[in-house]
Protein backbone atom coordinates (compact mmCIF):
# COMPACT_ATOMS: atom_id res chain seq x y z
CA UNK A 1 0.00 0.00 0.00
CA UNK A 2 1.24 3.47 -0.91
CA UNK A 3 0.09 6.27 1.37
CA UNK A 4 0.68 10.00 1.02
CA UNK A 5 0.03 12.48 3.84
CA UNK A 6 -0.04 16.27 3.39
CA UNK A 7 0.91 18.56 6.27
CA UNK A 8 1.32 22.31 6.70
CA UNK A 9 3.87 24.09 8.88
CA UNK A 10 2.16 26.64 11.14
CA UNK A 11 3.27 28.72 14.13
CA UNK A 12 2.43 27.35 17.59
CA UNK A 13 1.06 30.35 19.46
CA UNK A 14 0.68 30.27 23.22
CA UNK A 15 -1.77 32.43 25.15
CA UNK A 16 -2.32 35.00 22.39
CA UNK A 17 -1.72 35.32 18.66
CA UNK A 18 0.24 38.46 17.86
CA UNK A 19 0.30 39.94 14.38
CA UNK A 20 3.28 41.58 12.66
CA UNK A 21 3.19 45.40 12.23
CA UNK A 22 2.30 45.11 8.52
CA UNK A 23 -0.65 42.82 9.30
CA UNK A 24 0.55 40.15 6.91
CA UNK A 25 1.48 37.33 9.25
CA UNK A 26 1.51 35.95 12.76
CA UNK A 27 4.50 37.36 14.64
CA UNK A 28 6.63 34.28 15.07
CA UNK A 29 9.68 35.95 16.62
CA UNK A 30 9.37 33.90 19.82
CA UNK A 31 7.30 31.00 18.58
CA UNK A 32 7.93 27.39 17.74
CA UNK A 33 6.28 25.73 14.75
CA UNK A 34 4.08 22.70 14.43
CA UNK A 35 1.36 21.15 12.27
CA UNK A 36 -2.33 20.86 13.07
CA UNK A 37 -3.22 18.07 15.52
CA UNK A 38 -5.48 16.74 12.74
CA UNK A 39 -2.41 16.41 10.51
CA UNK A 40 -0.34 14.81 13.29
CA UNK A 41 -3.06 12.19 13.47
CA UNK A 42 -3.05 11.83 9.67
CA UNK A 43 0.71 11.15 9.83
CA UNK A 44 0.15 8.54 12.56
CA UNK A 45 -2.63 6.98 10.46
CA UNK A 46 -0.28 6.77 7.45
CA UNK A 47 2.36 4.99 9.54
CA UNK A 48 -0.22 2.59 10.99
CA UNK A 49 -1.68 1.76 7.55
CA UNK A 50 1.76 0.80 6.29
CA UNK A 51 2.47 -1.20 9.46
CA UNK A 52 -0.78 -3.13 8.90
CA UNK A 53 -0.74 -3.56 5.14
CA UNK A 54 2.90 -3.15 4.13
CA UNK A 55 4.12 -0.66 1.55
CA UNK A 56 5.42 2.82 1.94
CA UNK A 57 4.37 6.22 3.26
CA UNK A 58 5.34 9.68 2.00
CA UNK A 59 4.83 13.08 3.64
CA UNK A 60 4.45 16.21 1.53
CA UNK A 61 4.33 19.89 2.34
CA UNK A 62 4.12 23.16 0.45
CA UNK A 63 5.88 25.76 2.54
CA UNK A 64 9.08 27.58 3.42
CA UNK A 65 12.41 25.73 3.48
CA UNK A 66 12.06 25.50 7.28
CA UNK A 67 9.06 23.15 6.79
CA UNK A 68 11.83 20.55 6.52
CA UNK A 69 11.36 20.37 10.31
CA UNK A 70 7.74 19.13 10.01
CA UNK A 71 8.72 16.63 7.30
CA UNK A 72 11.48 15.21 9.49
CA UNK A 73 9.17 15.01 12.47
CA UNK A 74 6.85 12.83 10.38
CA UNK A 75 9.87 10.75 9.33
CA UNK A 76 10.91 10.39 12.97
CA UNK A 77 7.70 8.54 13.79
CA UNK A 78 7.98 6.27 10.78
CA UNK A 79 7.06 7.95 7.49
CA UNK A 80 9.44 6.65 4.80
CA UNK A 81 9.80 9.51 2.32
CA UNK A 82 9.48 13.29 2.33
CA UNK A 83 8.71 15.88 -0.34
CA UNK A 84 9.03 19.66 0.00
CA UNK A 85 7.41 22.09 -2.42
CA UNK A 86 9.27 25.26 -1.46
CA UNK A 87 7.54 28.64 -1.64
CA UNK A 88 9.06 32.02 -0.90
CA UNK A 89 5.95 33.82 0.35
CA UNK A 90 4.24 33.02 3.60
CA UNK A 91 1.24 31.18 2.24
CA UNK A 92 -0.51 30.31 -0.99
CA UNK A 93 -4.27 30.64 -1.38
CA UNK A 94 -6.19 27.35 -1.19
CA UNK A 95 -6.85 26.97 -4.94
CA UNK A 96 -3.20 27.52 -5.73
CA UNK A 97 -2.09 25.22 -2.90
CA UNK A 98 -4.41 22.48 -4.14
CA UNK A 99 -3.17 22.88 -7.72
CA UNK A 100 0.45 22.57 -6.58
CA UNK A 101 -0.25 19.50 -4.46
CA UNK A 102 -2.21 17.89 -7.32
CA UNK A 103 0.64 18.49 -9.78
CA UNK A 104 3.15 17.08 -7.29
CA UNK A 105 1.03 13.98 -6.72
CA UNK A 106 0.82 13.39 -10.47
CA UNK A 107 4.61 13.58 -10.73
CA UNK A 108 5.18 11.32 -7.73
CA UNK A 109 2.68 8.79 -9.08
CA UNK A 110 4.25 8.85 -12.57
CA UNK A 111 7.62 8.05 -11.00
CA UNK A 112 6.68 5.63 -8.21
CA UNK A 113 3.16 4.32 -8.80
CA UNK A 114 -0.28 5.46 -7.65
CA UNK A 115 -1.06 6.27 -4.02
CA UNK A 116 -3.81 4.05 -2.64
CA UNK A 117 -4.64 6.55 0.08
CA UNK A 118 -3.95 10.28 0.24
CA UNK A 119 -4.49 11.76 3.71
CA UNK A 120 -5.12 15.37 4.67
CA UNK A 121 -6.01 17.07 7.92
CA UNK A 122 -9.64 18.05 8.42
CA UNK A 123 -8.55 21.68 8.14
CA UNK A 124 -5.26 23.54 8.39
CA UNK A 125 -4.66 25.02 11.85
CA UNK A 126 -3.93 28.56 10.74
CA UNK A 127 -6.00 29.39 7.66
CA UNK A 128 -8.68 26.72 8.06
CA UNK A 129 -9.92 26.88 4.48
CA UNK A 130 -11.63 23.47 4.68
CA UNK A 131 -10.98 22.72 1.01
CA UNK A 132 -7.44 21.84 -0.10
CA UNK A 133 -8.02 18.07 0.23
CA UNK A 134 -11.40 18.22 -1.48
CA UNK A 135 -9.95 20.13 -4.43
CA UNK A 136 -7.03 17.73 -4.82
CA UNK A 137 -9.36 14.73 -4.69
CA UNK A 138 -11.65 16.22 -7.31
CA UNK A 139 -8.73 17.01 -9.62
CA UNK A 140 -7.55 13.40 -9.27
CA UNK A 141 -11.15 12.10 -9.71
CA UNK A 142 -10.94 10.25 -6.37
CA UNK A 143 -13.58 10.00 -3.67
CA UNK A 144 -13.03 12.24 -0.65
CA UNK A 145 -14.63 12.41 2.76
CA UNK A 146 -13.53 14.85 5.44
CA UNK A 147 -13.72 14.59 9.24
CA UNK A 148 -12.63 10.95 9.38
CA UNK A 149 -12.17 9.37 12.80
CA UNK A 150 -11.69 5.75 11.77
CA UNK A 151 -10.18 3.95 8.75
CA UNK A 152 -10.37 0.23 8.09
CA UNK A 153 -8.92 -1.24 4.92
CA UNK A 154 -9.76 -4.75 3.73
CA UNK A 155 -8.35 -5.48 0.28
CA UNK A 156 -9.67 -2.66 -1.90
CA UNK A 157 -12.58 -1.92 0.43
CA UNK A 158 -12.29 0.97 2.87
CA UNK A 159 -14.65 1.80 5.68
CA UNK A 160 -14.23 5.37 6.87
CA UNK A 161 -16.06 6.58 9.96
CA UNK A 162 -16.91 10.05 11.10
CA UNK A 163 -18.99 11.75 13.75
CA UNK A 164 -22.04 13.71 12.74
CA UNK A 165 -24.59 15.62 14.74
CA UNK A 166 -26.89 12.61 14.50
CA UNK A 167 -24.32 10.03 15.56
CA UNK A 168 -21.70 8.15 13.58
CA UNK A 169 -21.65 7.93 9.77
CA UNK A 170 -19.79 5.21 7.92
CA UNK A 171 -18.69 5.53 4.30
CA UNK A 172 -17.97 2.39 2.29
CA UNK A 173 -15.31 3.36 -0.24
CA UNK A 174 -12.99 1.71 -2.71
CA UNK A 175 -9.30 2.40 -3.16
CA UNK A 176 -7.88 4.75 -4.23
CA UNK A 177 -9.34 7.26 -1.76
CA UNK A 178 -8.61 10.66 -0.30
CA UNK A 179 -9.51 11.22 3.35
CA UNK A 180 -9.45 14.24 5.65
CA UNK A 181 -8.49 13.08 9.14
CA UNK A 182 -9.68 14.50 12.44
CA UNK A 183 -7.89 14.47 15.75
CA UNK A 184 -9.13 11.59 17.89
CA UNK A 185 -8.72 8.96 15.16
CA UNK A 186 -5.60 7.76 17.00
CA UNK A 187 -3.05 8.83 19.57
CA UNK A 188 0.08 9.90 17.69
CA UNK A 189 3.19 8.19 19.02
CA UNK A 190 6.23 10.12 20.19
CA UNK A 191 9.42 9.76 18.17
CA UNK A 192 11.99 7.37 19.57
CA UNK A 193 15.66 8.34 19.73
CA UNK A 194 16.29 5.86 16.91
CA UNK A 195 13.48 7.46 14.91
CA UNK A 196 14.93 10.92 15.43
CA UNK A 197 18.37 9.82 14.25
CA UNK A 198 16.94 8.02 11.23
CA UNK A 199 14.87 11.08 10.26
CA UNK A 200 18.04 13.16 9.96
CA UNK A 201 19.20 10.89 7.15
CA UNK A 202 15.97 10.95 5.12
CA UNK A 203 16.56 12.62 1.76
CA UNK A 204 13.93 15.33 1.34
CA UNK A 205 12.96 15.46 -2.31
CA UNK A 206 12.21 18.92 -3.68
CA UNK A 207 9.99 19.92 -6.60
CA UNK A 208 9.06 23.34 -7.90
CA UNK A 209 5.40 24.00 -6.99
CA UNK A 210 3.05 24.66 -9.90
CA UNK A 211 -0.13 26.69 -9.54
CA UNK A 212 -1.70 30.03 -10.45
CA UNK A 213 -3.24 32.40 -7.92
CA UNK A 214 -6.89 31.75 -7.07
CA UNK A 215 -9.80 34.11 -6.45
CA UNK A 216 -9.39 34.44 -2.69
CA UNK A 217 -6.61 36.80 -1.65
CA UNK A 218 -5.67 37.75 1.89
CA UNK A 219 -5.45 41.48 2.54
CA UNK A 220 -4.61 41.66 6.22
CA UNK A 221 -4.87 39.86 9.54
CA UNK A 222 -6.87 41.48 12.31
CA UNK A 223 -6.95 40.75 16.02
CA UNK A 224 -10.32 39.35 17.14
CA UNK A 225 -12.11 41.74 19.50
CA UNK A 226 -11.62 40.68 23.09
CA UNK A 227 -13.93 41.50 25.94
CA UNK A 228 -11.97 43.13 28.73
CA UNK A 229 -12.38 40.92 31.75
CA UNK A 230 -11.74 41.46 35.40
CA UNK A 231 -11.34 38.29 37.40
CA UNK A 232 -13.10 38.10 40.74
CA UNK A 233 -10.78 36.26 43.14
CA UNK A 234 -12.75 33.84 45.28
CA UNK A 235 -9.83 32.93 47.51
CA UNK A 236 -6.90 30.62 47.94
CA UNK A 237 -6.92 26.84 48.29
CA UNK A 238 -9.70 24.68 49.80
CA UNK A 239 -10.73 27.56 52.10
CA UNK A 240 -12.30 29.14 49.00
CA UNK A 241 -14.87 26.32 48.73
CA UNK A 242 -17.74 28.16 50.53
CA UNK A 243 -17.24 31.18 48.23
CA UNK A 244 -17.36 28.87 45.20
CA UNK A 245 -20.56 27.20 46.40
CA UNK A 246 -22.08 30.64 47.10
CA UNK A 247 -21.33 31.44 43.46
CA UNK A 248 -22.87 28.15 42.26
CA UNK A 249 -26.04 29.05 44.16
CA UNK A 250 -26.04 32.63 42.90
CA UNK A 251 -25.68 31.45 39.26
CA UNK A 252 -28.51 28.97 39.80
CA UNK A 253 -26.25 26.04 39.02
CA UNK A 254 -26.61 24.47 42.45
CA UNK A 255 -30.34 24.29 42.98
Amino acid at each position, binding site marked *: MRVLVCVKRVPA*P*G*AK*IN*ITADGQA*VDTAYLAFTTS*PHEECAVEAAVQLVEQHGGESTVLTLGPAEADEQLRYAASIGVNKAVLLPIATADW*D*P*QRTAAAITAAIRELEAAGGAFDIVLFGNES*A*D*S*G*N*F*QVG*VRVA*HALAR*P*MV*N*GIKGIEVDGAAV*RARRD*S*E*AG*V*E*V*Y*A*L*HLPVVLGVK*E*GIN*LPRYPTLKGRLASKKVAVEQAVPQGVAG*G*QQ*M*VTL*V*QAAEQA*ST*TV*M*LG*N*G*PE*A*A*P*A*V*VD*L*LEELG*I*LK
Partner: protein
Amino acid sequence: MTVLVLIEHDRGSLNPASLEALTAARAIDPQIEALTLGAAADGLAGELAANGAAVVHQVHADLLSDYGPEAWGEATAQAVRALKPDAVLACGTERGNEVMAQAAARLDLPMVANCIEFVPGDTWTITRVRWGGSLLEQCTLSATTKLVTVAHHAFEATPSQAAGTVAPLPMTLDPALARTVVADRVERAAGVTLATAPLVVGGGRAVGSAEAFAPLEELAARLGGVVGCSRAVTNNGWRNHTDQVGQTGTRIAPDLYIACGISGAIQHWVGAMASKKILAINTDPEANMVAKADYAVIGDLHKVVPAITAEIIRRRG
Protein backbone atom coordinates in the same frame (compact mmCIF):
# COMPACT_ATOMS: atom_id res chain seq x y z
CA MET B 1 -28.34 40.32 -7.44
CA THR B 2 -29.37 36.75 -6.61
CA VAL B 3 -28.14 35.29 -3.36
CA LEU B 4 -28.80 31.60 -2.96
CA VAL B 5 -28.58 29.84 0.40
CA LEU B 6 -27.77 26.14 0.48
CA ILE B 7 -29.87 24.66 3.27
CA GLU B 8 -28.26 22.05 5.51
CA HIS B 9 -30.53 19.32 6.79
CA ASP B 10 -30.19 15.78 7.98
CA ARG B 11 -32.85 13.55 6.44
CA GLY B 12 -35.26 16.48 6.50
CA SER B 13 -34.42 17.92 9.89
CA LEU B 14 -33.10 21.44 9.49
CA ASN B 15 -29.71 22.39 10.89
CA PRO B 16 -30.48 25.65 12.75
CA ALA B 17 -27.18 27.07 11.46
CA SER B 18 -28.97 27.35 8.10
CA LEU B 19 -31.18 30.07 9.60
CA GLU B 20 -28.02 32.01 10.46
CA ALA B 21 -26.92 31.68 6.83
CA LEU B 22 -30.33 32.95 5.67
CA THR B 23 -30.00 35.96 7.99
CA ALA B 24 -26.45 36.62 6.74
CA ALA B 25 -27.68 36.42 3.15
CA ARG B 26 -30.42 39.01 3.78
CA ALA B 27 -27.76 41.43 4.97
CA ILE B 28 -26.18 41.15 1.50
CA ASP B 29 -29.45 41.46 -0.42
CA PRO B 30 -32.97 41.45 1.07
CA GLN B 31 -34.26 39.28 -1.80
CA ILE B 32 -32.84 35.78 -1.23
CA GLU B 33 -33.50 32.27 -2.48
CA ALA B 34 -32.97 28.89 -0.88
CA LEU B 35 -31.81 25.54 -2.25
CA THR B 36 -32.81 22.25 -0.67
CA LEU B 37 -31.37 18.91 -1.73
CA GLY B 38 -33.43 15.75 -1.50
CA ALA B 39 -37.19 15.17 -1.21
CA ALA B 40 -36.87 14.78 2.56
CA ALA B 41 -36.26 18.55 2.76
CA ASP B 42 -39.47 19.55 0.92
CA GLY B 43 -41.25 20.06 4.21
CA LEU B 44 -38.82 22.82 5.15
CA ALA B 45 -40.19 25.27 2.54
CA GLY B 46 -42.56 26.98 5.00
CA GLU B 47 -39.85 27.57 7.58
CA LEU B 48 -37.48 28.85 4.88
CA ALA B 49 -40.16 31.29 3.68
CA ALA B 50 -40.56 32.50 7.26
CA ASN B 51 -36.83 33.15 7.27
CA GLY B 52 -36.74 35.24 4.14
CA ALA B 53 -36.59 32.84 1.18
CA ALA B 54 -38.52 34.37 -1.75
CA VAL B 55 -38.03 31.17 -3.74
CA VAL B 56 -37.20 27.66 -2.52
CA HIS B 57 -35.51 25.61 -5.22
CA GLN B 58 -36.04 21.91 -4.55
CA VAL B 59 -33.90 19.18 -6.06
CA HIS B 60 -35.15 15.59 -6.07
CA ALA B 61 -32.83 12.69 -6.86
CA ASP B 62 -32.42 9.18 -5.47
CA LEU B 63 -28.80 9.96 -4.73
CA LEU B 64 -29.90 12.73 -2.38
CA SER B 65 -31.96 10.50 -0.13
CA ASP B 66 -29.09 10.66 2.36
CA TYR B 67 -26.04 12.84 2.76
CA GLY B 68 -23.06 12.37 0.47
CA PRO B 69 -20.37 15.02 0.02
CA GLU B 70 -19.90 14.40 -3.69
CA ALA B 71 -23.62 14.09 -4.56
CA TRP B 72 -24.43 17.22 -2.56
CA GLY B 73 -21.46 19.10 -4.02
CA GLU B 74 -22.36 18.11 -7.57
CA ALA B 75 -26.04 19.06 -7.04
CA THR B 76 -24.96 22.46 -5.69
CA ALA B 77 -22.61 22.95 -8.66
CA GLN B 78 -25.41 22.09 -11.09
CA ALA B 79 -27.75 24.50 -9.31
CA VAL B 80 -25.15 27.24 -9.75
CA ARG B 81 -24.89 26.46 -13.46
CA ALA B 82 -28.67 26.48 -13.86
CA LEU B 83 -29.60 29.45 -11.66
CA LYS B 84 -26.46 31.56 -12.15
CA PRO B 85 -26.66 33.22 -8.74
CA ASP B 86 -24.27 36.01 -7.82
CA ALA B 87 -23.47 34.27 -4.58
CA VAL B 88 -24.11 31.03 -2.70
CA LEU B 89 -24.00 30.93 1.09
CA ALA B 90 -23.95 27.83 3.28
CA CYS B 91 -23.32 27.36 6.98
CA GLY B 92 -19.76 26.95 8.17
CA THR B 93 -20.43 23.54 9.65
CA GLU B 94 -18.58 20.33 8.84
CA ARG B 95 -21.08 19.48 6.13
CA GLY B 96 -21.53 23.05 4.90
CA ASN B 97 -17.82 23.55 4.37
CA GLU B 98 -17.43 20.12 2.82
CA VAL B 99 -20.26 20.56 0.31
CA MET B 100 -19.18 24.06 -0.69
CA ALA B 101 -15.60 22.87 -1.21
CA GLN B 102 -16.94 20.06 -3.40
CA ALA B 103 -19.07 22.51 -5.39
CA ALA B 104 -16.17 24.97 -5.71
CA ALA B 105 -13.84 22.26 -6.99
CA ARG B 106 -16.43 21.20 -9.58
CA LEU B 107 -17.04 24.80 -10.71
CA ASP B 108 -13.35 25.70 -10.52
CA LEU B 109 -14.29 28.71 -8.39
CA PRO B 110 -12.80 30.03 -5.16
CA MET B 111 -14.61 29.30 -1.88
CA VAL B 112 -14.15 31.33 1.28
CA ALA B 113 -14.84 29.44 4.51
CA ASN B 114 -16.20 30.70 7.83
CA CYS B 115 -16.98 34.32 7.03
CA ILE B 116 -18.38 36.81 9.51
CA GLU B 117 -18.75 39.95 7.40
CA PHE B 118 -19.35 40.67 3.72
CA VAL B 119 -18.87 43.86 1.74
CA PRO B 120 -20.38 43.00 -1.66
CA GLY B 121 -19.27 44.62 -4.90
CA ASP B 122 -17.60 43.50 -8.08
CA THR B 123 -14.96 42.01 -5.87
CA TRP B 124 -16.19 41.22 -2.37
CA THR B 125 -14.28 42.16 0.72
CA ILE B 126 -14.78 39.56 3.41
CA THR B 127 -13.83 39.11 7.04
CA ARG B 128 -13.36 35.48 8.01
CA VAL B 129 -12.12 33.56 11.03
CA ARG B 130 -8.77 31.80 11.26
CA TRP B 131 -7.28 29.63 13.97
CA GLY B 132 -10.76 28.41 14.81
CA GLY B 133 -11.80 31.97 15.69
CA SER B 134 -8.75 33.35 17.51
CA LEU B 135 -7.75 35.55 14.60
CA LEU B 136 -9.58 37.36 11.81
CA GLU B 137 -8.54 37.72 8.19
CA GLN B 138 -9.66 40.29 5.70
CA CYS B 139 -9.62 38.97 2.17
CA THR B 140 -10.97 39.74 -1.25
CA LEU B 141 -13.01 37.36 -3.35
CA SER B 142 -13.27 37.71 -7.11
CA ALA B 143 -15.40 35.17 -8.95
CA THR B 144 -18.42 35.04 -11.24
CA THR B 145 -20.35 33.34 -8.43
CA LYS B 146 -19.15 33.98 -4.88
CA LEU B 147 -19.13 30.77 -2.85
CA VAL B 148 -18.88 31.37 0.89
CA THR B 149 -19.74 29.73 4.17
CA VAL B 150 -20.94 31.65 7.21
CA ALA B 151 -19.12 31.03 10.49
CA HIS B 152 -21.41 29.32 13.00
CA HIS B 153 -22.77 31.75 15.65
CA ALA B 154 -21.53 34.82 13.75
CA PHE B 155 -25.08 35.89 12.88
CA GLU B 156 -28.11 35.67 15.09
CA ALA B 157 -30.94 34.06 13.13
CA THR B 158 -33.92 36.39 12.80
CA PRO B 159 -37.17 35.52 10.98
CA SER B 160 -38.51 37.57 8.07
CA GLN B 161 -41.54 36.47 6.06
CA ALA B 162 -41.15 36.07 2.30
CA ALA B 163 -43.13 34.32 -0.43
CA GLY B 164 -41.23 31.06 -0.39
CA THR B 165 -42.45 30.07 -3.84
CA VAL B 166 -41.53 26.44 -4.41
CA ALA B 167 -39.61 25.85 -7.64
CA PRO B 168 -38.59 22.30 -8.56
CA LEU B 169 -35.09 22.23 -10.04
CA PRO B 170 -34.75 19.23 -12.37
CA MET B 171 -31.37 17.57 -12.30
CA THR B 172 -29.68 14.33 -13.33
CA LEU B 173 -26.91 13.10 -11.10
CA ASP B 174 -24.30 10.60 -12.24
CA PRO B 175 -24.88 7.35 -10.27
CA ALA B 176 -21.08 7.10 -9.93
CA LEU B 177 -21.35 9.80 -7.24
CA ALA B 178 -22.83 7.15 -4.97
CA ARG B 179 -19.24 6.18 -4.11
CA THR B 180 -19.39 8.65 -1.19
CA VAL B 181 -22.79 8.40 0.45
CA VAL B 182 -23.46 7.40 4.03
CA ALA B 183 -23.47 3.59 3.96
CA ASP B 184 -24.26 3.05 7.59
CA ARG B 185 -25.07 5.09 10.58
CA VAL B 186 -25.33 4.72 14.31
CA GLU B 187 -27.60 7.23 16.04
CA ARG B 188 -26.24 8.93 19.09
CA ALA B 189 -27.77 7.96 22.41
CA ALA B 190 -29.85 10.77 23.89
CA GLY B 191 -28.31 12.66 26.78
CA VAL B 192 -26.24 15.68 27.69
CA THR B 193 -23.28 16.19 25.38
CA LEU B 194 -20.20 18.27 25.96
CA ALA B 195 -21.39 20.76 23.33
CA THR B 196 -24.76 21.32 24.99
CA ALA B 197 -24.06 20.72 28.70
CA PRO B 198 -25.13 23.55 31.03
CA LEU B 199 -22.05 22.96 33.17
CA VAL B 200 -18.60 21.66 32.27
CA VAL B 201 -15.81 20.77 34.69
CA GLY B 202 -12.61 20.83 32.64
CA GLY B 203 -9.36 19.21 33.65
CA GLY B 204 -5.90 19.97 32.28
CA ARG B 205 -2.43 18.51 32.46
CA ALA B 206 -2.27 19.26 36.18
CA VAL B 207 -4.92 16.60 36.91
CA GLY B 208 -2.10 14.13 36.38
CA SER B 209 -3.75 10.83 35.45
CA ALA B 210 -6.95 9.19 34.19
CA GLU B 211 -7.88 8.10 37.73
CA ALA B 212 -7.39 11.58 39.14
CA PHE B 213 -10.39 12.76 37.09
CA ALA B 214 -12.72 10.99 39.57
CA PRO B 215 -13.19 14.07 41.82
CA LEU B 216 -13.94 16.18 38.72
CA GLU B 217 -16.48 13.57 37.59
CA GLU B 218 -18.11 13.67 40.98
CA LEU B 219 -18.37 17.47 41.04
CA ALA B 220 -19.77 17.52 37.50
CA ALA B 221 -22.33 14.84 38.32
CA ARG B 222 -23.52 16.73 41.42
CA LEU B 223 -24.05 19.84 39.30
CA GLY B 224 -25.74 18.09 36.37
CA GLY B 225 -22.80 18.67 34.07
CA VAL B 226 -20.09 16.77 32.23
CA VAL B 227 -16.30 16.60 32.29
CA GLY B 228 -14.19 18.17 29.56
CA CYS B 229 -10.43 18.35 29.17
CA SER B 230 -7.50 19.97 27.42
CA ARG B 231 -5.41 18.47 24.66
CA ALA B 232 -2.59 17.78 27.10
CA VAL B 233 -4.99 15.30 28.71
CA THR B 234 -6.08 13.55 25.51
CA ASN B 235 -2.48 13.47 24.30
CA ASN B 236 -1.54 11.62 27.47
CA GLY B 237 -4.33 9.13 26.83
CA TRP B 238 -6.09 10.02 30.11
CA ARG B 239 -9.38 10.79 28.42
CA ASN B 240 -11.02 10.23 25.06
CA HIS B 241 -10.75 12.96 22.44
CA THR B 242 -14.55 13.38 22.55
CA ASP B 243 -13.97 15.18 25.87
CA GLN B 244 -11.49 17.67 24.43
CA VAL B 245 -12.46 21.33 24.46
CA GLY B 246 -10.87 23.62 21.89
CA GLN B 247 -9.95 24.41 18.32
CA THR B 248 -9.55 20.78 17.32
CA GLY B 249 -12.02 19.50 19.91
CA THR B 250 -15.50 20.62 20.93
CA ARG B 251 -16.81 24.19 21.31
CA ILE B 252 -18.66 24.42 24.59
CA ALA B 253 -21.16 27.06 25.73
CA PRO B 254 -22.22 26.15 29.28
CA ASP B 255 -23.60 28.54 31.90
CA LEU B 256 -20.42 27.86 33.86
CA TYR B 257 -17.10 26.32 32.86
CA ILE B 258 -14.89 25.30 35.77
CA ALA B 259 -11.38 25.01 34.31
CA CYS B 260 -9.10 23.08 36.65
CA GLY B 261 -5.35 23.10 36.02
CA ILE B 262 -5.72 24.42 32.48
CA SER B 263 -3.31 27.15 31.37
CA GLY B 264 -5.66 28.67 28.81
CA ALA B 265 -3.69 28.35 25.58
CA ILE B 266 -5.42 30.17 22.74
CA GLN B 267 -6.43 26.88 21.08
CA HIS B 268 -8.17 25.76 24.26
CA TRP B 269 -9.65 29.19 24.96
CA VAL B 270 -11.32 29.40 21.55
CA GLY B 271 -13.38 26.33 22.45
CA ALA B 272 -14.28 27.68 25.89
CA MET B 273 -14.87 31.36 25.22
CA ALA B 274 -18.59 30.98 24.50
CA SER B 275 -19.12 29.86 28.13
CA LYS B 276 -21.34 32.36 29.94
CA LYS B 277 -19.09 32.35 33.01
CA ILE B 278 -15.70 30.80 33.67
CA LEU B 279 -14.18 29.81 37.00
CA ALA B 280 -10.48 29.00 36.87
CA ILE B 281 -8.81 26.86 39.51
CA ASN B 282 -5.06 27.13 39.10
CA THR B 283 -1.94 27.28 41.24
CA ASP B 284 -0.56 30.03 39.02
CA PRO B 285 -2.26 33.42 39.47
CA GLU B 286 -0.56 34.54 36.23
CA ALA B 287 -2.08 31.75 34.10
CA ASN B 288 -3.94 32.99 31.04
CA MET B 289 -7.04 31.07 32.12
CA VAL B 290 -7.05 32.97 35.42
CA ALA B 291 -6.62 36.31 33.66
CA LYS B 292 -9.46 35.61 31.24
CA ALA B 293 -11.85 33.95 33.70
CA ASP B 294 -14.71 35.70 35.49
CA TYR B 295 -13.78 34.03 38.79
CA ALA B 296 -10.69 32.28 40.08
CA VAL B 297 -9.47 30.22 42.98
CA ILE B 298 -5.71 30.10 43.37
CA GLY B 299 -4.71 26.71 44.63
CA ASP B 300 -4.14 23.02 44.04
CA LEU B 301 -7.07 21.53 42.15
CA HIS B 302 -6.55 18.23 43.98
CA LYS B 303 -7.49 20.00 47.22
CA VAL B 304 -9.92 22.63 45.90
CA VAL B 305 -12.21 20.37 43.86
CA PRO B 306 -12.94 17.87 46.68
CA ALA B 307 -13.45 20.80 49.08
CA ILE B 308 -16.13 22.24 46.77
CA THR B 309 -17.88 18.87 46.59
CA ALA B 310 -17.68 18.53 50.39
CA GLU B 311 -19.21 21.99 50.83
CA ILE B 312 -22.04 21.09 48.42
CA ILE B 313 -22.71 17.92 50.45
CA ARG B 314 -22.62 19.95 53.69
CA ARG B 315 -25.25 22.34 52.35
CA ARG B 316 -27.42 19.96 50.35
CA GLY B 317 -26.74 16.59 51.91
